[in-house]
C-alpha cells in the first residue's frame, strides 16, 4: 500500500426508495454513516438489506432518494465509476485468472503502472495471508482462501467504502469466526468505511460499530450493538437481536398489566409517553429462575415475579438455558449452571427480575415474527 490509514468516506442515504414494479423493496431509507465506521445491515431475508447494498453499489437504480459518498452524489454514477470495493456472497472470483491476476484486476482498470501494481498486489496478499498462493487458480483454493482473495481484490486499491454482501455465510463456524477477526483487523488497518450485510445477529454484534436493522423494506432501528440489545425500540428488534422473555399485555399508569391480569412495576425512569397494547421484554440473563414448589420465599428477591412452566432445558457449557411458558407469553431464561437443573421439564417455576431490567415495547399490529 502506498498510503496507510487512508481515511474512509462518509456515506449518506437520503430517502432511498426502490420499487420493483408495484413491489416496494426498500422504502425511505435514510442513514448517515461516519467515515471509517463499520456498519452492518441486519435483517431477515427479503427485509431490503441486500437491495439497499445493491443501490449503493449501483447494481440497482434508486426509484427515489439520493446516495452520497464523501459529499459526491453516487446516484447517477455507473457502477464502475463509483470506486467501491465489494466482496460478494459467492466470492465471484474470476475463474480464469490466478489469485494474483484477480487481485490486480481493479488496479489494472485504474491504469496503475505495472511496477506499482505488483507492489500493491504483494502487499495486499501479505495482508490476507495468501502470499504463497499467488499463482494458483481460484478452483485450487479452499472456501476460506477464496474469501480472502475476494477480500484482497476489494481492498487492494484502498477504496473509501467497502461493501460486503454476506461474505461469510458459506463458511463453517470456526472459519467464520477466524475471518471475522481478520476483517476487523483489516478494517482497523485500512480505516475504510465498511457496510456489511448479514442475517446473522451474532456476526453483526461481533463486528459492528453500529447496526442498522431492516424489516420489510424499512429501517427499524439504528444503534450500537449494546443499544440494540439493551434498548430495543420495538418488538422486532428485541426478538431478532438476542433472546428474550416476552409477556403480552397493556401499558397504563406507568404499570404493565398482563393479559391475564397480573400487574408489574416498571422502570420509572423510562418515560414512554403513551399507553396501550404492549409487550414487556426482559433479557434472559436478568431473570432468576427457581423451582416454584421449593422456594416461595426467594421470589421476593426481585421486584417482579411470575410463575410459569418449564418447557425445555438446553445446556450451553457455561450456563443453562430454560425455555419457560407463561400464561401471556414466554421465552428464554439464562442461568448460571449450578451443577444441575433447577427443576424438571414440565414442573412449575418462578421467575423474578428487577423492574428496571424490563423494557416496555408497543405492540405491533400485524406482527409476524420472522425470527422464530
Amino acid at each position, binding site marked *: 500500500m502506498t498510503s496507510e490509514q487512508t481515511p474512509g468516506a462518509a456515506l449518506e442515504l437520503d430517502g432511498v426508495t426502490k420499487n420493483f414494479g408495484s413491489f416496494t423493496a426498500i422504502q425511505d431509507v435514510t442513514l448517515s454513516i461516519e467515515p471509517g465506521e463499520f456498519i452492518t445491515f441486519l435483517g431477515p431475508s427479503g427485509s431490503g438489506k441486500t437491495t439497499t447494498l445493491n443501490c449503493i453499489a449501483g447494481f440497482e437504480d434508486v426509484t427515489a432518494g439520493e446516495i452520497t459518498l464523501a459529499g459526491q452524489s453516487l446516484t447517477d454514477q455507473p*457502477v464502475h*465509476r463509483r470506486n467501491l470495493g465489494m466482496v*460478494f456472497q459467492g466470492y465471484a472470483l474470476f475463474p480464469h485468472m490466478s489469485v494474483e491476476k484477480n487481485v490486480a*484486476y481493479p488496479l489494472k*482498470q485504474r491504469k496503475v503502472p505495472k511496477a506499482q501494481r505488483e507492489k500493491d498486489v504483494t502487499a495486499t496478499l501479505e495482508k490476507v495471508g495468501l502470499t504463497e498462493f499467488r499463482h494458483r487458480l481460484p478452483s485450487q483454493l479452499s472456501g476460506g482462501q477464496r474469501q480472502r482473495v475476494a477480500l484482497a*481484490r476489494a481492498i487492494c486499491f484502498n477504496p473509501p467504502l467497502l461493501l460486503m454482501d454476506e461474505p461469510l455465510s458459506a463458511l463453517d463456524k470456526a472459519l467464520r469466526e477466524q475471518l471475522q477477526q481478520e476483517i476487523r483487523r483489516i478494517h482497523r488497518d485500512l480505516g475504510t468505511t465498511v457496510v456489511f450485510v448479514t442475517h446473522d445477529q451474532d456476526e453483526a454484534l461481533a463486528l459492528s460499530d453500529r447496526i442498522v436493522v431492516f424489516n420489510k423494506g424499512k429501517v427499524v432501528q439504528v444503534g450500537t450493538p449494546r443499544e440494540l440489545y439493551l434498548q430495543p425500540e420495538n418488538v422486532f428488534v428485541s426478538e431478532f437481536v438476542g433472546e428474550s422473555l416476552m409477556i403480552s399485555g397493556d401499558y397504563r399508569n406507568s404499570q404493565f398489566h398482563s393479559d391475564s391480569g397480573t400487574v408489574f412495576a416498571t422502570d420509572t425512569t423510562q418515560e414512554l409517553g403513551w399507553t396501550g397494547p404492549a409487550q414487556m421484554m426482559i433479557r434472559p440473563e436478568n431473570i432468576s429462575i427457581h423451582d416454584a414448589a421449593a422456594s416461595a420465599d426467594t421470589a421476593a428477591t426481585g421486584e417482579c415475579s411470575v410463575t410459569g412452566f418449564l418447557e425445555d432445558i438446553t445446556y450451553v457449557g457455561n450456563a443453562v438455558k430454560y425455555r419457560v411458558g407463561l400464561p401471556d407469553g414466554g421465552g428464554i431464561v439464562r442461568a448460571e449452571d449450578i451443577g444441575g437443573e433447577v427443576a424438571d421439564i414440565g414442573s412449575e417455576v418462578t421467575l423474578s427480575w428487577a423492574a428496571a431490567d424490563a423494557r416496555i415495547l408497543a405492540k405491533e399490529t400485524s406482527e409476524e415474527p420472522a425470527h422464530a
Partner: protein
Amino acid sequence: MTKNRPKIKKSRLFLYLLCVPIAFWLVAPTLVVIPLSFTPQRSFAFPPPGFSLEWYENFFTSPQWLGGLLNSLQIALLVASISSILGTLAAYGLSKTSGFRKTLSNGLLVSPILIPAVIFGVGVYAVFLRTGLVGTMAGFVLAHTMLALPFVVVNVGAVLVAYDTQLERAAWVSGAGRIRAFMTVTLPVIWPGVASGFLFAFITSFDEVIVSAFISSPALQTLPVRMFTSVQREVDPTIAAAATLIIILTTAIALTAIFTRKKRKV
C-alpha cells in the same frame, strides 16, 4: 465388492456387443468411399481392383475441384467468424431478457434449423436474384450465416445458463465498464461455448449443399455443390477423393471440439 466385479464385466461385454455393431453400421457407409478413392479405374466398383493416387492428383490439379474446396473453406471461415460474433452477442442478450420477448427472439433465431432447407433455398434464391447476390461470395456468406447462427446461439446459450452473473458485477465494481467487463471476464469464461459454436458453424457452412445449389453459379461453386453436380452428370472417382478429404477435415474438427470441451471440464 469382489462379488460384484464379474457382474459389471458381463454388462460391459453386453454393451460392447450391442454398441460395436451399431457404430459399425453408422460409420461403414461413410468409410466405403475411402478405398474407392484409391481405385485405378474410372468406376465405383467395390472393392477397387488396385491402388492409385490418380483421383487425388486430379482433385488437386482441377480448377473446379480445388477451386470448390478453396471456396468452401473461405466461405466456412467467414461464416464461422461472423456467426460466432453475432450469435454470442445474441445469446448474451437473450440471457438478460425473459418472458415473451425471450421466447419470440429465441424462436426466430433458431427457426433456420427447423425450416426445410429446400424452402429456405427457394426463398433465398428469389431474394438474391433481385439483389444480385446469386453466385457471389457475399451471397453464400449471408445465406450460410443464417443457417449457422442458431448453432452458435444454442451453444453459447447453454454455457451462459451456468454463468455466474456475479462475476460481471465483480468486474464492474472493480472499475471495468460494460464492454471491458464482457471482454475480460464474461468472454473468457464462456469461451468453450463460443469455440464449439464456431466449429459447428464452420461445419454447417462447409457441408451445406441444398441452399448452396440454388445460389451457386458456374463461376462460384462450393465443394459440396461440385460433388453433387459430378455425381449427377459423370462417373468420376475424384468425388471419392474429395469425400475422403472432407471426412478427414470434419473428423479432425469434431475431435478438436470434443477434446477441448473435455479439457475444460476437468
